[in-house]
């Protein structure tokens, strides 16, 4: 079917938004810090922002071509845009909100998003999760060819967020529409999207499957943004064919990756093991330090030890009887660390 292709170049506050994307029947997530230009990309596709230069086309239908002077108004572009705060019409009830996009499928959509019983309610009386479902139903009422989601989960509290994320993933899989979603949360992006693009200061640093980004982050920013610990240092050849990284903060770490000069050593929290004393295992990297903090996330615990954050199971934390201020050893294998360019 139709592919959405876009090339944009547009000045924003302190940088230029310069993006080139092509998406078929898949979900692509643009993930980056706030102010990176993510929402501007969505607004440009929807026709709410006219870029200085750009081309946007859905299959053979040109929506925008600044050189040719083509610029379809938003109402003639077949998009469903879900706004960050949902932008539900406060003066219309749920049914009328959904019907604003198209009257034919209202009942079906109310049913599908489990909001039939709320048909007569005003948006201000709905919970965050309900608002999100109304916003999705409304965006789909127009039967759009492209779906755009702006921070679809950020307005929700932590508990609702986990539930809604699952529902949204199912919905996107079912719709199989070209879907572009933007978020500042890498975990959301990884859970919802087939491909993830990390965008900073208007540029896409790396684009690929979430697993690819984790396995081979293109640079230090991507590494830390995807959740890795990042230790800065200078690389030089070490023993056993490994690369030794002399850390700025003191001490050395080893990586199986090659590299030299200024580098960042990236290691993900789930690659780090904790023990009471230095283990006699295959890990070559050990950091002895005090437990600085313990944060429980469901069945996992995030433990900060010195410069590292480790993620272990709640059961392991219990077994080790970890308490703040106690000495532990954090270990990871040379093969678990990545050397990345420092930008």
């Amino acid at each position: 079917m139709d592919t959405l292709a876009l090339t944009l170049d547009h000045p924003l506050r302190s940088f230029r938004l310069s993006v080139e994307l092509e998406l078929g029947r898949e979900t692509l997530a643009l993930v980056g810090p706030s102010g990176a230009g993510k929402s501007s990309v969505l607004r440009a596709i929807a026709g709410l922002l006219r870029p200085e230069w750009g081309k946007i086309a859905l299959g053979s239908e040109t929506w925008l071509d600044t050189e040719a002077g083509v610029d379809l108004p938003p109402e003639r572009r077949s998009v469903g845009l879900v706004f960050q705060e949902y932008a539900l019409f406060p003066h219309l009830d749920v049914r009328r909100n959904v019907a604003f996009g198209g009257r034919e499928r209202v009942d079906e959509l109310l049913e599908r998003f489990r909001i039939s019983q709320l048909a007569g309610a005003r948006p201000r009386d709905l919970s965050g999760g309900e608002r999100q479902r109304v916003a999705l139903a409304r965006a789909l009422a127009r039967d759009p060819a492209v779906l755009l989601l702006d921070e679809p989960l950020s307005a929700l509290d932590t508990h609702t967020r986990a539930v809604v994320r699952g529902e949204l993933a199912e919905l996107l899989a079912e719709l199989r529409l070209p879907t572009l979603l933007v978020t500042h949360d890498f975990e959301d992006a990884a859970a919802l999207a087939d491909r993830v693009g990390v965008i900073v200061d208007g540029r896409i640093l790396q684009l690929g499957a979430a697993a690819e980004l984790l396995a081979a982050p293109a640079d230090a920013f991507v590494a830390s943004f995807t959740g890795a610990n990042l230790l800065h240092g200078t690389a030089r050849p070490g023993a056993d064919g490994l690369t030794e990284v002399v850390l700025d903060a003191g001490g050395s770490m080893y990586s199986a990756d090659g590299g030299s000069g200024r580098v960042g050593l990236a290691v993900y929290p789930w690659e780090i093991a904790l023990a009471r004393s230095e283990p006699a295992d295959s890990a070559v990297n050990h950091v002895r330090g005090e437990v600085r903090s313990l944060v429980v996330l469901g069945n996992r615990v995030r433990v900060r030890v010195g410069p590292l954050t480790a993620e272990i199971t709640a059961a392991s934390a219990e077994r080790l009887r970890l308490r703040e201020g106690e000495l532990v050893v954090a270990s990871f294998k040379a093969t678990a660390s990545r050397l990345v360019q420092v930008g």
Partner: protein
Amino acid sequence: MTRLFPVALGAALVVAVTFLALPVLAIFLRVPPGELVAQLGDERARDALLVSLQTSLIAHALILGVGTPAAYLLATTRFRGRATVLSLLELPLVLPPAVAGLGLLAAFGRRGLLGEQLQVVGLEIPFTQLAVVLAVCFVASPFYLRAAVTAFESVDPALLGAARTLGARPLRVFARVALPLSLAGLGAGSTLAFARGLGEFGATIMFAGSLPGRTQTAPLAIYDALDEDFDVALALGALLVVVSLALLLAVKLVPSWTRSPSPSTTLFAPFGSR
């Protein structure tokens, strides 16, 4: 000494309230209510009220019809010189009414800027009811425009954008989203402009004169009746007080009835947030 300041504050409030309420009360205390109603039967009073009503309604229709779309455009678009346009629209608010009348004569008078062109089409404006309407529009419309721009600006732009992406053309966005969400603010501004127009005096007397039955509005009739029949003046005055009070109450109460999200219950809402 420490108690002096609170006492001074209280005294200032008492002085202010008494001073502002006394003249209004005096109108009603001077003549018994029954008498006031009887005086309204006076032919002159009736004519003046009729002229006031006619001209105010026509002027108000013009203010709403032109002001609403103009304010919407000003509130939803950014262009060079926008701030200047906004200031220009506020000018009549601070202009002395006599200067407003003078300006209208200079623009639409027989020897005014557009005098010749108007004569060609056979239109003579000064000292007609049309002049009253124009004078009222000139002094009253800024009150509505100000409030309307603020009301439209307070509508979340994301809602207007959402309506567009849902397939609505600009006219439908205006009618189905912007207008309903601004209704409380528009109502307040509209009421205020109507009240201001009803009381118009200075510009009207200069530009339209005070011809009984033609251009003599209620405020002008009050002024005229002062020398001859003070009771007629009081009766007209009392009626205008009642109308003004009703309009004020409407501005204060209507927003809470409609439960509109725009909490514009003060008459002098700040002009935007620039």
